């Protein structure tokens, strides 16, 4: 069947219409490259806008051809058009209020746009692509697979604990490439609460599959002969179970802790991971909790040590992946761990969603655009 109207014949009789459809081979997909703006952040990530030699206007309302629902975008904001030489395009600001930016630089008049460059209007960010329809179809397929992998990881995350002596809140915002983060928490028994966060060093479906494997081992507690109340032993066993040679060269960092309500001690171990931070109530003081161990999977004979911390009533633990602080702020400056720490102590003590509060606060500081890595953050409040 074809849906081309030229394939339908109409009989010249007003009362009867004979429709005859003819099968004919679908025309082969063109191998000519075309210009696209692929949306990577904003209201419709994944949206692809095609343009050519005819200028295409972007704005908030008609007569702009490509409409963007964003209060920071002007009615007629900018236009893009393909230029003479292959792959070249030109973007022209149409007198917008908030400016048009190419790779972070404000467009004065017109600016050249080539493959891979970022175009930003308000909170909407696009990447310029110059590809064949077949390449676009392939990229869409990959993006779809990543989206499925991301949904799977999210389906395994624990429900937040909103009542009881231990409260949890978390956020998980995967990057477009999916960064291999996973985390969780569970009760070992009526007294002991365990939580962890892992970050596989890699991107894409492979890293996500690895993080899901590790996560499932922890969720089901299926490490042979392992006391899950002993963090060093957990890391040791994971290191034995997931050597990089047998897992496509993948290693991961982990922070794993067990809180016992009877003695109010948090026993923890980390492998290749930056510290988690424990904030005592009313003090704004952060204790860095970390033990100095190698990433998991890098070396068979690696040793793993644990440590413990006393947890006052009302203390709060922040456990997060490096995607939470390895970002660029609005001025383009690269953050490090030290830039995040003041924000941890600013979370209002009574806020019921401290992780999501932090997520908003941090991402407001960050340069708009797609996340470079997964943004995973778990906050645990010990009442």
């Amino acid at each position, binding site marked *: 069947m074809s849906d081309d109207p030229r394939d339908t014949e109409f009989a010249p009789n007003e009362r009867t219409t004979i429709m005859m459809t003819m099968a004919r081979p679908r025309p082969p997909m063109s191998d000519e490259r075309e210009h696209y703006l692929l949306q990577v952040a904003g209201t419709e990530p994944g949206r692809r806008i095609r343009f050519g030699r005819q200028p295409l206007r972007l704005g908030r309302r008609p007569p702009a051809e490509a409409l963007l629902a964003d209060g920071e975008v002007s009615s007629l904001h900018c236009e893009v058009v393909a230029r003479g030489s292959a792959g070249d395009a030109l973007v022209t600001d149409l007198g917008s209020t908030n400016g048009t930016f190419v790779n972070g630089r404000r467009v004065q008049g017109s600016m050249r746009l080539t493959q891979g460059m970022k175009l930003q209007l308000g909170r909407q960010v696009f990447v310029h692509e110059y590809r064949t329809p077949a390449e676009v179809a392939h990229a869409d397929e990959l993006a779809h697979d990543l989206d499925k992998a991301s949904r799977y990881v999210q389906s395994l995350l624990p429900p937040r604990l909103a009542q009881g002596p231990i409260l949890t809140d978390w956020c998980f915002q995967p990057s477009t*490439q999916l960064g291999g983060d996973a985390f969780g928490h569970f009760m070992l028994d009526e007294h002991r609460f365990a939580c962890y966060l892992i*970050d596989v*060093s*890699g*991107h894409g479906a492979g890293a996500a599959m690895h993080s899901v494997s590790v996560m499932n081992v922890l969720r089901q507690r299926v490490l042979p002969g392992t006391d899950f109340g002993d963090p060093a032993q957990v890391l040791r066993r994971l290191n034995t179970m997931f050597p*990089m040679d047998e897992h496509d*060269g*993948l*290693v991961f*960092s982990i922070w794993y802790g067990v809180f016992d309500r009877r003695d109010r001690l948090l026993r923890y171990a980390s492998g*290749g*991971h*930056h*510290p988690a931070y424990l904030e005592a109530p009313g003090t704004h003081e952060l204790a860095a909790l*970390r033990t*100095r*161990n*190698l*990433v998991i999977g*890098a*070396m068979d004979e*690696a040793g793993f040590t644990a440590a413990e911390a006393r947890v006052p009533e009302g203390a709060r633990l922040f456990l997060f992946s*490096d995607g939470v602080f*390895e970002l660029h702020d609005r001025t383009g400056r*690269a953050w*490090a*761990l030290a830039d995040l720490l003041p924000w941890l102590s600013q979370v209002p003590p009574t806020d019921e969603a401290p992780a999501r509060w932090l997520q908003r606060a941090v991402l407001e500081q960050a340069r708009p655009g797609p996340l*470079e*890595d997964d943004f995973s953050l778990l906050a645990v409040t010990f009442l």
Partner: protein
Amino acid sequence: MEIEVTPLDPTVNCLRLQGRLDAVAVDRIEVKVNASAVAPGHDLLVDLSAVDFVASLGIRLLITAARSLKAKGARMVLFGAQPLVGEVLEHVAIDQIVPVVADETAARALLAAA
């Protein structure tokens, strides 16, 4: 990210990395590092002084190179890390798998002493 491999003497190469060792850079240089810097019978000094950021994939690249060299009977030493890069190396305790020293002199001395 730029890389440059220079022979320091017949048995020691120096790999100089420059820029951000992030996911994009690792994708670009991984094959080249393994092809040119991981050579049998050649110890490798890795100069990190011009690296201003290292992501977890960069750590994996360094670990993989160190393991490959070890399997070939050679050694690797990291030197010259800037403070922020040094912080990341410390967090991942990479010195348990590959020594980390302050500068090239210390790196050469370490190879000579072993």
